């Protein structure tokens, strides 16, 4: 029961962050570790800043 609640909370946070254009940090770190072990792993703050800037660079992204 408890693990299910934790998982649900994790999903909610993930959805909320993604809706603001911030992908899941843990997923990114895991991805870097498995596929690009030579690269430096950014801190959450660095990761957040980079994604925040990236969100408003492209076109579209929101509706009227």
């Amino acid at each position: 029961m408890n693990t299910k609640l934790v998982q649900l909370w994790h999903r909610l946070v993930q959805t909320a962050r993604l809706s603001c254009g911030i992908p899941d940090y843990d997923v990114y770190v895991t991805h870097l570790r498995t596929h690009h072990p030579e690269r430096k792993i950014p801190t959450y703050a660095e990761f957040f800043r980079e994604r925040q800037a990236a969100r408003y660079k492209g076109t579209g992204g929101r509706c009227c």
Partner: protein
Amino acid sequence: METIATRPAGVASKVVWVIIAIIGAACLGVIALRRGEPINAIWLVAAAVAVFLIGYRFYGRFIELRVLQMDPGRAPPSVLHNDGLDYVPTDKWVVFGHHFAAIAGAGPLVGPVLAAQMGYLPGTLWILFGVVLGGAVQDFMVLGLSIRRDARSLGHMLREELGPFAGVVAMFGLLALMMIVLAVLALVVVKALTHSPWGTFSVACTIPIALLMGIYLRWLRPGRILEVSLIGLVLLLTSIAYGAHVAATPVLANLFDFDAKALAWLLIGYGFFASVLPVWLLLAPRDYLSTFLKIGTIVLLAVAILFAAPDLQMPAVSRFIDGTGPVFQGQLFPFLFITIACGAVSGWHSIIASGTTPKLLANEGQARMVGYGGMLMEAFVAIMALIAAASLHPGVYFAMNSPSALIGTTVEHAAATISQWGFVVTPDELSRTAHDIGETGILSRAGGAPTLAVGMAQLLHNIMPGERMMAFWYHYAILFEALFILTTVDAGTRVGRFMIQEIAGLVHEPLKSTESWIGNVLATSICVGLWGYFLYQGSVDPLGGINTLWPLFGIANQMLAAIALMLATVVTVKLKRQRYVWVPGIPATWLVVCTLTAGWEKLSGPISFTVASQTYAQAMQAGKLMAPAKNLAEMQRIITNNSVDATLTAVFMLLVLTMCGFSIYAMMKAWRSHIPTAHEAPRVALTSVAGQTP
């Protein structure tokens, strides 16, 4: 090829669906046939749920299996190009939440409110059937096409499937649509804040609040979005509560009391500065706040409707289907289908369905839920907005949404005029409503937001009574819409700026660099100038602006939807699945017919921009002044504005026709071909990609 298994439905499942169908049909019957006595909003909610469930289960699945032939065993872009950032296989509920947050905006809350002037029935039917057969089909099919093409954008797919020139044409159409969207949304804010110190104060407070949040997120607690949003929310609610004090203190109230013209200039100035500032300082924090507030408000509205279960006071069909309505001109066909764009069919969604979402889906089998299901949710929001408007006293509704040129500027005059239309209302009722919501007046506040705010305030007040609570909820609803729209204006100006720089880069290469300050300021000025022109024009328009601009917006939005559906039609033929060409083909044709008819009526005929411009020009030549112009300069302005609007309408029509031409040509070529000619990426089995389980 592996496709989704089509196992026969069990008896229990069949029984459940028959019951849902019967409930839906019964509710629709009540809505359509009950005359003379008000019906309860719950009938509408139940009918919508039944129609959406059936549409999702049967039509959505039909499209998934036959037309798009979605294949859960095929590796999607998120797996093939997994980079942990943009392309990430993500849980389907998370993708759904993200997609819905991206597509739901102010549009579905405004259009249905305006369309309520024709009664609740036409709008309801168009939303229910428009979304099942058109809007959700568009979103789902564009998503389905994009996921098979490495998550390419709509523009990219148009270039590939219809040719490079078609892509350029669509790019210009998109820019024009963007400018109209920004102008009309900014105008909604202007209309809501005109001579409303309370509203203006609380909206102005969002700027320092956002700056504070930006600094907090940057230096104090980097990346703690949820935490900072909660702080922001508390500050916002405080500013609404304090706004009552501002409105009640004459010295303070004067500082925040503006007319439409002044507000338009303030918004134009704001739009410029906001979009050249770094994103982390103002745009991003406000974006977070408005995203959460939007979802929260939609949930609040749903709860309010379910618990208050209001009766609909608006007639099912009003006399204004004949085209003489005060809110917008034009007959039911085609103008109802132009007025309610978002919520039934929204062209803008094709940008999102070919943007982030296809990069996140973990497999093709989830595209129906996100694409088709997400749009059904938005249609549900539109139905709720329609209920909020239709549950208002019709007299109050028309007082709020009719231009002052028709109902005058006093409650006595307005009440007399509206009662003559057959919606009996007393001056006292109008004054009392204004008093209840803590405003000095409610007349001629077109644009949807104030009407929805009053409707919402009354619903919430019904379930949570309390002294002055209605005024609080009214200003909460206004603040929510304004916050959301300001974010769109800011982000939209940036996007518009990049589009302009891209176009300018074709002429002079260095202008393309988004890092260059000169290019930045120049393109931002052009962009703000473009939407600002229409905003200013709307704010001084004697007919209230929304009357003129909303049809232009509707035509532009449906034009984009038509283009997206034409692409889907062409690709269906190119895949040699032409027996299903009618699936995207019928809504595409319907939208082309609607936009062209509406465009034509706005170009020639009694309600056209051209005729208005000519009438004023003739009067001016004869040396006469025509109401509501008070001098020759105003006469000249009306003539110019109408000519500009007419030109823009002609451009939109030309765009639709050009894209039609390209589509028909591509379709005929593909029809004759014996092999599929669509540009799909080759199939890679999900099981063959390392670390993936189907």
